[in-house]
C-alpha cells in the first residue's frame, strides 16, 4: 500500500484536513453527536444556525418522512448567538475540529449584529455560513435567498462586520437562476458558496386532509434532493469556476460526495444522513480515500471539477 491519498482541501484560504463537513442543523453544536462520533474525524462542523435573540421554533409536527427524504419546518429553534459564544464555543475550542458558524436573521440588521458578536467573541470560529433562507420581515417575509438584492444586502452587511473570516452564503434552490443569486452575493463580498439549502415541499395526510407539517410547507432534504444539488453545484461552478463551493444536499455515501466534487464542489456537507448514521462523515471520508487509492489519485485536486462531457 502506498501513502494514504491526500483528502485535504482548501476553502477560500481555510484548510480542511478532510473535505466532508457536518451540515448546519444536523449536528447541533457538535456536542450532542460527540458521544456517537469522533469529531476530529470530521472535516469540520457547521453548527446549527444562530440568531441575535433565541428563537423558539415552529409548532409541531415539524417533520415528516417522504420518499428517500424528509420534510422539515423547524423554524431555526436556537438559544441565540450569546449562548453559543458563552456555552458552546468554549467547549468546541477544546475539540480538534474546524468550526463554521451558521448565522440567521429576519432583517439585515439582525445578521449584522450576530456577525458583530462573533467578530468580538467568536474566537475559534474559522468561517461563517450565512443562512439566507430566512423570511425577510422587511420584505413581506420573502426569503432573502430568493432575490439577488436582499441576498446581496445580507452578505454586504456581514462582510462589513467581519472583514477577515471566509463567508459562505447558503443559497436556496427554490429560485429561477441560482447562478444569478450566486453572482449577486459574490459581488457583495462572499468568499465562497454553500449549495444548496432544502427544497420547498409539501406533504398531506389524506386521513385528516391536513399538511403533515404544522407549518404547511417545509424543506425537503435527503437523497431525494441530491440530483437537484448536483445540478446547482454544476451550474454555479460553470459560471464561477474559481469560487469554492461547499456542496450539500442528500449526500449519504462516498459516491454521492464524489458526484459533488466532480461537479465542482471543493468540500461537501452531510446533513440528513447524520440522523440515520452519525458516523456517515468518517465513513464517507474513508470511502473517498478508497476510491482514490483504487484509481491512483493522489489528491482531491484531481477530482474537483473534473466533469467530462458527452461528445
Amino acid at each position, binding site marked *: 500500500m502506498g501513502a494514504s491519498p491526500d483528502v485535504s482541501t482548501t476553502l477560500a484560504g481555510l484548510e480542511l484536513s478532510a473535505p466532508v463537513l457536518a451540515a448546519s*442543523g*444536523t*449536528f*447541533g453544536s457538535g456536542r*450532542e*453527536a460527540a*458521544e*456517537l*462520533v*469522533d469529531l476530529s474525524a470530521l472535516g469540520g462542523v457547521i453548527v*446549527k444556525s444562530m440568531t441575535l435573540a433565541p428563537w*423558539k*421554533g415552529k*409548532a*409541531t*409536527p*415539524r*417533520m*415528516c*418522512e*417522504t*420518499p*428517500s*427524504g*424528509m420534510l*422539515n419546518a*423547524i423554524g431555526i*429553534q436556537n438559544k441565540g448567538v450569546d449562548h453559543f459564544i458563552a456555552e458552546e464555543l468554549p467547549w468546541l475550542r477544546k475539540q480538534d475540529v474546524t468550526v463554521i458558524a451558521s448565522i440567521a436573521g429576519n432583517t439585515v440588521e439582525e445578521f449584522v449584529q450576530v456577525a458583530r458578536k462573533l467578530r468580538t467573541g467568536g474566537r475559534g470560529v474559522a468561517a461563517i455560513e450565512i443562512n439566507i433562507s430566512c423570511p425577510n420581515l422587511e420584505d413581506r417575509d420573502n426569503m432573502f435567498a430568493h432575490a439577488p438584492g436582499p441576498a446581496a444586502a445580507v452578505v454586504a452587511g456581514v462582510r462589513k462586520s467581519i472583514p477577515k473570516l471566509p463567508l459562505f452564503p447558503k443559497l436556496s434552490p427554490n429560485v429561477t437562476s441560482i447562478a444569478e443569486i450566486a453572482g449577486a452575493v459574490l459581488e457583495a463580498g462572499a468568499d465562497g458558496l454553500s449549495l444548496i439549502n432544502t427544497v420547498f415541499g409539501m*406533504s398531506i*395526510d*389524506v*386521513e*385528516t386532509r*391536513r399538511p*403533515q407539517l*404544522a407549518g404547511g410547507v417545509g424543506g425537503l432534504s*435527503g*437523497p431525494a434532493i441530491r440530483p437537484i444539488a448536483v445540478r446547482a453545484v454544476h451550474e454555479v461552478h460553470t459560471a464561477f469556476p474559481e469560487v469554492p463551493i461547499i456542496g450539500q444536499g442528500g449526500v*449519504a455515501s462516498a459516491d454521492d460526495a464524489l458526484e459533488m466534487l466532480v461537479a465542482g464542489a471543493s468540500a461537501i456537507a452531510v446533513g*440528513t*444522513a*447524520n*440522523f*440515520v*448514521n*452519525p*458516523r456517515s462523515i468518517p465513513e464517507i471520508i474513508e470511502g473517498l480515500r478508497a476510491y482514490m487509492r483504487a484509481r491512483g489519485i493522489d489528491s482531491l485536486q484531481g477530482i474537483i471539477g473534473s466533469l467530462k462531457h458527452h461528445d
Partner: protein
Amino acid sequence: MMRMSSGEILSHKKYGDAFHSLTIVAPDIGERVVPGQFINIRCGRDRSFILRRPFSVYRVHKRGGWASTIEIVFDLRGPGTRYLSELRSHSIVDLMGPLGRGFTLPKNRAHCLLVGGGIGAAPLFFLADELRNDGHRVDVILGARSSRLLLNPIDVRRLASVYRITTDDGSAGEKGRVTDALSEMIDRCESDVVYTCGPHPMLAAVAGVCVDKKAPVQVAVEELMGCGFGVCMTCVIPVRPGKSRRGNAAEISYQRSCTDGPVFNGASVVWDAATDIVSSGQSELSPGGTPARQGVVVDSTGEHAPPGN
C-alpha cells in the same frame, strides 16, 4: 464509541394478533438501559425510507438463558415496522441506544400507579419489573381502543397488586378511558406517584387528573423523532419548568423528547399548547408508535406514507 451497536434477533413472537415482539441480544444496551429510555433502529438499507424507528424498551432480561437481551413490541404501521416484522432469529439489526432520560424511581418504598394506553404501555412493563425488584408496590390501569389492542393484559394481572382494564368500545374490562378509573385508583391504592405512557391526549388527561389530585406524575411522551440524539429539533414539546420564586410563570420552552425526555414531569408539560394531531402515516416515528389521537378512527394499519414502498 458509545451507543451505536448491532444486535442479533433471538426471537420474534406475537402478542395477540396485533403486536409483534422482537427479543434482541444487545448486551451493551441491556446492561445500561433504564425504564422509559428507547432505542433507535435502522430498518434496513433501503433508501426509499431513511429514518430510524424509535422503540421504547418493553422488557430487559437480565438473568437466565435470555440474559442481556432486550425486548421491543410494535404493531405494523409503515415500512419500518414491516421490515422488522419480517426479521427472523439470527438476523442482525443496527441499533442506537439507550437514548433519552427514563423514569425516576422512588427513593423510599412507594405505591406506584402505572397508566398505559395501547402500545404506549410498552415501557411500563419494564418499569413495573424494576419497581417490584426494588420493593415498591405496583398498581396498573391498562387501556386501549379495543381488546385486541390491549398490550399483554395477562401479565398485568401478575405484576399489579390492583389493576383496572378499560377499552373505548367495552370489548374488554370496563367501557371507557383510563382516566375514568384514575381518580378512584389513586385514592384506593394510596398512590404516591403516577407513571404514564400512551397517546398524547391520554397523557394530557392523565396529567390533568394527577395535578388536580396533587399526585406527582411522570409522563413518557411519544413525539415524532428525526434523529433521536438531540440535533434535529423535531420531537420538541412545550414545557414550563415550574414557577419562579416570585410566583411568575416561567417562560415556555420547547424541549426535546429524545434527550430532555421522553420522560417529563407531567405537571410541567404545557398540554394545551401541544399538538393534538399526529398524522397516522408517520406514527412509527415515535417511540411507542402510538398515533396521538386516541378515539379517532384510523384504518387498522395506520399506514399511508411514505409512498414509493
